[in-house]
């Protein structure tokens, strides 16, 4: 990892969503890793914001992110213009495990809300390695479905769910997961709202390995402040682990949820 200024070269906005392309020194990353991003925004907010990597063009020294404007920090990121400087620290965290499950059955990627970007990055890596991918994406409404064109480009046809039924299945995305698991249980990778992750963990229990990407308010993002911990149980011992360092991806079985 490194901490350095990068330059915004493109900002493609759609509603509250902005796909940012930053150029600078790029250290190769794994899907599920993230950066702490901080614009030249003075005193407030004080801290950078954790944003997952959406994609990486190492050859062009570019890394891409998708940011949803929700609060002070993300709104400033959303409003950035080409040429603006962003201080980027990363890549951070552990990322999704890219092996260690049954290579015969397809993996199921579950994405909700702004949990979509890291899953798209994961899908692109997996599809390069030739793995079978089932991609389930949930959103409140059609307009909040993300990155459908990128998925299409890599030949992945997502199963969609919206709360209002404006696209795909009317209901929550974990209903799609339940169906898939009955059909052919494969390893599950999930990123999205905590309720979605919990429900995915419950569905997978005893059936399929399930890796979830957690969120936390982060002080540093690189493991020194201990603000982002969650309890993790390994070999019968429960201890705090840092979401920014040992995570953000955890084996759902190890979390104090089930």
């Amino acid at each position: 990892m490194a901490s350095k200024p990068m330059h915004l070269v493109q900002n493609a906005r759609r509603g509250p969503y902005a796909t940012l392309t930053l150029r600078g020194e790029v250290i190769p990353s794994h899907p599920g890793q993230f950066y702490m991003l901080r614009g030249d925004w003075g005193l407030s907010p004080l801290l950078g914001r954790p944003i997952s990597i959406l994609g990486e063009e190492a050859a062009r020294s570019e890394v891409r992110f998708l940011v949803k404007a929700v609060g002070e920090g993300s709104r400033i990121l959303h409003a950035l213009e080409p040429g603006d400087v962003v201080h980027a620290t990363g890549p951070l965290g552990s990322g999704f495990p890219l092996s260690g499950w049954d290579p015969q059955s397809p993996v199921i990627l579950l994405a909700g809300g702004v949990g979509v970007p890291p899953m798209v990055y994961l899908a692109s890596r997996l599809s390069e390695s030739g793995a079978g991918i089932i991609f389930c994406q949930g959103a409140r409404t059609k307009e909040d479905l993300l990155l459908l064109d990128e998925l299409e480009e890599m030949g992945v046809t997502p199963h969609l769910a919206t709360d209002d039924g404006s696209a795909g299945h009317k209901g929550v995305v974990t209903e799609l997961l339940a169906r898939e698991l009955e059909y052919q249980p494969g390893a599950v990778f999930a990123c999205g709202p905590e309720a979605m992750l919990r429900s995915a963990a419950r569905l997978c229990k005893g059936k399929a390995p399930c890796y979830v990407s957690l969120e936390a308010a982060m002080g540093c993002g690189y493991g020194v402040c201990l603000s982002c911990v969650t309890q993790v149980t390994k070999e019968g011992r429960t201890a705090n682990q840092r979401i920014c360092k040992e995570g953000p991806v955890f084996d759902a079985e190890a979390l104090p949820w089930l």
Partner: protein
Amino acid sequence: MALNLGVRVGNLQLKNPVMLASGCCGYALEMEEFFDLSLLGGYCLKGLCEGGSEGNPPPRLCETPGGLINSIGLQNIGIEAFLKEKAPKLRKAGSVMVANFYGHSVDEYAAAAERLQAEPCIAALEMNISCPNVKTGGIAFGTDPKLVHEVTAACRKATAKPLWVKLTPNVTDITETAKAAEDAGADALSCINTYPAMAIDVERRAFKINTRSGGLSGPAIKPLAVRAVYLVSKAVKIPVVGIGGISTWADAVEFMLAGASAVQVGTALFSNPLAPLEILEGMREYCARHGVEEISTLTGAAKDFERPSCNLPSRTK
């Protein structure tokens, strides 16, 4: 013109005045991914205790205007685990390591000091009697001059290493606790720890931090900390290490002018891990610009405003 960046904190020689503050650089290994620790004056480890601690439940952190509140609750892996797992790797780092520590009773403090005494790569001990986030130990010891004296004296007996006492600003008169620590044999005073603070999420109508109160750090507290350093450095003869909201070279110089012999950078590391190096570089340029040959001459050099009739500040280039 040669510039000497070296400073002394009691018997301890630092190659420059910029250190990393306890709890903001973990066990320093994470920082090595960003830069070479030996570039700095030194660093303070996350507060250690015997047996370690899981700390407080989350949420442990929230932002406030120009600052942040934390309530980590001194989570640490314990002195034993530190010495076994981390210390060997840090021996190679070639920088001055200061071990921040605490206990839940005078005896525990002394025992911890004794245990740390044995490790050669530890250059000094920083006694934390000022953490607002643990129920026993921490701040309870730091607000009563009598207790400060007692716990400092006990640790003084337990170690021959330089002993720094980290003061809490949450007192009516910080010079009293400062003098108590000096009398009991402290070699230096670290000024200051965080300020007890609180924030409430108005939409949820709930405290933002699990333990309700936490400790405020960051730029917001800088002017409070500068005053504490000023008062303490006038009140005692031992050196003062300045801490609180330092994020630029000008902040670091300000603390030295107020009376600090060295400074520690904490919260600023979170948003900019390279802050300490930028601060050091800025201090170098400042000295060059002002014809300062020994950076240590800045300590306590603030003067009164020359022209009382003039209402305007000068500009920092």
